[in-house]
């Protein structure tokens, strides 16, 4: 990574911290510790499942919301405040700006996820009193959630590179919802015929497949994860993010900033 990209990434991270993004950790801690105590009293035999399901779902949803709402403002806010011109007047290429912003936001989310993961394991320890070997699978689920964040960050940046913050939020959130239905979309494509089948299949492969990255329920039931799945999900997320980032760079390079 070039020092310029690293510098922009570090600044993006610093700005997110200054914007009190990490305050969500307080809400997360309250939610998880409250649920760990409360559910044990009102339900039967699912304390461990609730901590894992609720913890990982909260990590995922909090992160998605942060990724979308910060990601959509990364470019437009710089244009609005006119700080972009100061940055680009220095020897910084436009693509470096986009890539730096991406790494900055991704870094923020990784740090956020790290603290939330400590919260999840803490709540789990409170409920089960000791860790068992299959609990390590939670790390796999957390890793997949980070991969999901990378995809969403890149998409938010892509939309931010050509659209207003409001529209970017709508686009990014819609793609998150559609991506959660990617398997269904592929199922519908399989049932269709002719041109509809081709269009539906194309759409199913074009939207991000978030259901492949969601292994929360499987991990809660201690189902093993194959190394092939981990490898292929990693490559998928990296390629998809690279695709969206390339699109963002292409648009931003040609954008008239005057």
């Amino acid at each position, binding site marked *: 990574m070039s020092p310029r990209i690293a510098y922009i990434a570090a600044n993006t991270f610093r700005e997110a911290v200054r914007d009190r993004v990490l305050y969500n950790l307080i809400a997360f801690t309250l939610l998880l510790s409250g649920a760990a105590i409360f559910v044990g009293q*009102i*339900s039967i035999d699912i304390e461990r*499942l609730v901590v894992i399901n*609720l913890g990982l779902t909260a990590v995922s*949803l909090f992160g998605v919301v942060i990724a979308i709402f910060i990601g959509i403002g990364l470019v437009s806010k710089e244009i609005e405040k006119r700080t972009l011109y100061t940055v680009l007047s220095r020897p910084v290429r436009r693509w470096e700006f986009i890539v730096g912003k991406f790494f900055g936001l991704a870094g923020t989310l990784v740090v956020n996820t790290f603290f939330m993961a400590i919260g999840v394991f803490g709540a789990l320890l409170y409920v089960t009193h000791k860790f068992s070997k299959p609990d390590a699978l939670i790390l796999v689920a957390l890793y997949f959630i980070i991969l999901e964040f990378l995809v969403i960050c890149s998409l938010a940046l892509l939309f931010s590179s050509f659209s207003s913050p409001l529209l970017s939020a709508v686009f990014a959130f819609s793609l998150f*919802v559609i991506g*959660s239905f990617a398997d269904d979309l592929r199922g519908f494509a399989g049932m269709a015929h002719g041109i509809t089948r081709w269009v539906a299949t194309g759409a199913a492969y074009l939207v991000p497949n978030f259901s492949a990255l969601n292994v929360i*329920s499987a991990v809660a039931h201690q189902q093993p994860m194959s190394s092939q799945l981990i490898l292929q999900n990693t490559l998928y997320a990296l390629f998809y993010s690279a695709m969206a980032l390339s699109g963002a760079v292409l648009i931003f390079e040609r954008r008239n900033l005057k």
Partner: protein
Amino acid sequence: MRTARQRTTIIAAVSLAVSMAASVLLLRHIDRLRPQASIEDVLYINSPKMIKRASLGFDGLMACIYWTRTVQYFGHRHFDYAHSYNELAPLLEITTTLDPHLLPAYQFGASFLAPRPPGGAGQPERAIRLMEYGIQNNPDNWQLYYNLGFVYYTELKDYRKAAEVFERGSNVPNAHPFMKILAAQMAMHAGDFTTARMLWSATYETARESTIRQNAVEHLRAVQVDEDVTHLEALVTEFAQRNGRAPTSMTELVAAAHLKGIPVDPDGDAYKITSDGRVLVETPDDFPFITKGLPPGYKPGPPKFHSHS
């Protein structure tokens, strides 16, 4: 002297507290005006597939929420001595569709659905369907076969099916060895007190949840009472055949049958004999699952569990 800013702060704080208290009080009054609007009897969306899709992939958490809701629904209805549990089966169906591997939903769900009201919903067929769905999705879990066999045994008295299910379960890898014994026992001596005692003892030993263990204890106590009453009634019949009349008191029966002392139930209370020779327990409410020793026309309340084990 207070500044204008301090005055505004105090007025706003008082206004906030008063408004909040008023809105809470009003809501409580409104709730009293429309008691039928209880959330427990409302399933806004009852299609399991629809809920699964709407969960955006977070179906594990949704299943936990629906399972908690099921427990709360059953608990409230049970507490109110309800005789109808209309939403119980749909709630369990939604829960297990959202997460087909949520084992407590099958194990406890069947024990909510199968028993006759007010102990349960009185829907053993739905309980069997639920357990078969559970077995289909978790074929390597022997406990599901055990629970299914139990429903056949306790609620439907279908001993042949119960034996068949225990046999199927005994073939599952890592199945508890008593599954084989249960299958054989069920095929040969299904109606015996020994079989009943064996089943409930197995439940007590394998269950982790304290309520299930307490339930097993209550059933073991009931088996003991049923066995005692059966034995005492046989002695009464023998006495009547010999003397041409029923014994007038337990003391008379004890003397005639050479018993060691006045027979007592698991709580230590003496059994009674009525003038027509019927053997009764002292406090039937303390034995919610007994089938013998009950006064004529007795209507049981919902089971209450004792703290002892």
